[in-house]
């Protein structure tokens, strides 16, 4: 099974609202990355957080990492219709294995 599990599987919000997605994983990691995918095409990197970091920001994105709970969250503030996409967390282990989560499908309604 994949390393990461995300919830919710699907999320629908109004434009301007905040969206929060959660990712849980199973084994120790070196870092955790979040990616966005539009319409089943290539993935776009959003943010990378290392295992010794607890929080990172990038524009409207805020990522937290709790290694004791093996979980991470991605917060998108003031969402826009263009944020509609699937969002994946990905964990990189010390053994150089790379695991994507199951993904959250976000729909932002204009």
């Amino acid at each position, binding site marked *: 099974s994949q390393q*990461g599990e995300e919830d919710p599987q699907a999320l629908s919000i109004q434009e301007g609202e905040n969206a929060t997605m959660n990712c849980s994983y199973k084994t120790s990691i070196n*870092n955790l990355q979040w990616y966005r995918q539009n319409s*089943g095409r290539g993935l776009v990197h959003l943010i*990378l957080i290392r295992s010794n970091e607890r929080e990172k920001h990038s524009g409207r994105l805020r990522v937290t990492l709790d290694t004791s709970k093996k979980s991470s969250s991605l917060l998108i503030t003031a969402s826009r219709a263009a944020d509609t996409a699937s969002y994946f967390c990905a964990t990189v282990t010390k053994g*150089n*294995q790379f695991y*994507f989560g199951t993904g959250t499908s976000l729909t932002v309604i204009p």
Partner: protein
Amino acid sequence: DAGVTQSPTHLIKTRGQHVTLRCSPISGHKSVSWYQQVLGQGPQFIFQYYEKEERGRGNFPDRFSARQFPNYSSELNVNALLLGDSALYLCASTGGGQGLQETQYFGPGTRLLVL
């Protein structure tokens, strides 16, 4: 600057055939990774190559193989195709020597349909 490019964009094969997918990394990037994404699921890691050497391998059968060329481009080969190999195949490149530990830049993918 050109991003990661992949060819072909779409491909239809029949069971038992062989397929070769190609990837060119971002100029200056020396690491290439391959992923399989079945419809409705997250991508699964297949291989990582750095400086023409395999640095990581996911849980895929030996029917899957890859190589990296001196110009850092890469090929993914799949033999004896099965229906279950139908998927979007993604290639990603990274700029430094840390490979999977770094930000990966993905290509648009090759969509393979096995009939």
